[in-house]
């Protein structure tokens, strides 16, 4: 444990209570808006509209209740770091899933032929390599690295 000295603290700068009540009432109105918007069908945009309102509500909570607007800007930078990482985290699976349709059609053409070649290669190992670019390594070219191999 460190030693603790009793000293005068920093002078607080309280905001008006009405600022907090105002933010709270805005959040309630936005919650009602979220529910109302969900009754309408915007098609593809449904989830975008819902997330836009939720993000605005989150920004209000972070800015006023969590005091980011009034604290050191460095804390906002820390928050943004995690949001950038989260965006990257979301981006790649979405890119993957949204481009799968193209890949699936390509695989549909490719796979049956590939499987036939693979089956033939299994049955006729002496004729390897069949596929272009697949070189069978010569015995004296093999280099093992790691424990247990010499």
């Amino acid at each position, binding site marked *: 444990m460190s030693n603790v000295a*009793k000293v005068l603290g920093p002078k607080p700068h309280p905001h008006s209570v009405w600022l907090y009540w105002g933010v709270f009432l805005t959040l309630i109105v936005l919650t009602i808006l979220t529910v109302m918007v969900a009754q309408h069908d915007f098609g593809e945009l449904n989830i975008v509209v819902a997330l836009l309102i939720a993000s605005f509500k989150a920004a209000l909570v972070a800015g006023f209740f*969590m005091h980011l607007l009034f604290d*050191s800007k460095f804390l906002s930078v820390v*928050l943004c770091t995690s949001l950038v990482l*989260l965006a990257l*985290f979301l981006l790649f699976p979405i890119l993957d899933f949204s481009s799968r349709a193209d890949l699936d059609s390509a695989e549909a053409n490719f796979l049956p032929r590939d499987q036939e070649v693979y089956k033939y290669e299994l049955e006729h190992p002496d004729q390897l390599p069949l596929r272009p670019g697949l070189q069978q390594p010569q015995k004296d070219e093999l280099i093992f690295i790691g424990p247990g191999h010499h």
Partner: protein
Amino acid sequence: MANINGSALFPLADHYATPEQQVDSGKLGMWLFLTTEILLFGGLFVSYACFNYLHMDVFKEAHKYLDWRLGAVNTVVLLFSSLTVVLAIHAAQKQKKYLIVINIALTIACGIAFMAVKYVEYSHKFHAGLLPGSYFTNATIANPDQAHIYFGIYFLMTGLHGFHVLIGIGIFVWLLLRTIKNDFSSQYYAPLELGGLYWHLVDVIWIFLFPLLYLIS
């Protein structure tokens, strides 16, 4: 300084130069923790996005088995509890102990109310067999083979969030006890601010969970 109660002064640890530095360090540490929390829940939000993309019809059908009214009530409860947290900090800044106590007590009450509503929702799903994976036994749903995916995500996300609410309730009980012990004053209320930051983050996560789980159409 003479008219300020000794226990209400700022407890400056000797490895800090000034009270401001101590408060700022605490806030930075809390925000770093909150970023890890965002990424923890982020993983679940990403899995939600992927499974929603792959099984859009399943998600649209399964979310009808959630009562959006209960979700909306819980949203308002959590938003109100976030308000009482900032009002508690405001009361500390204004040196009004009874207002700190009232607002923290309201925050704890909101947390308990949130968990009570969650209990009602969970017990309904347990009885209806709307459960993750192989525990899914509901036969009335349109696509029983795949609906368990939605409830797996539902229980993981709301379960982890509910766990955070429970921890938050514990933190605010501790803050209430310290307030009663006269630990906080207009000179020193950093633990209230840090506990509040955690509570607000739990609120923000619910702000996203509510439309995503209850209102997808």
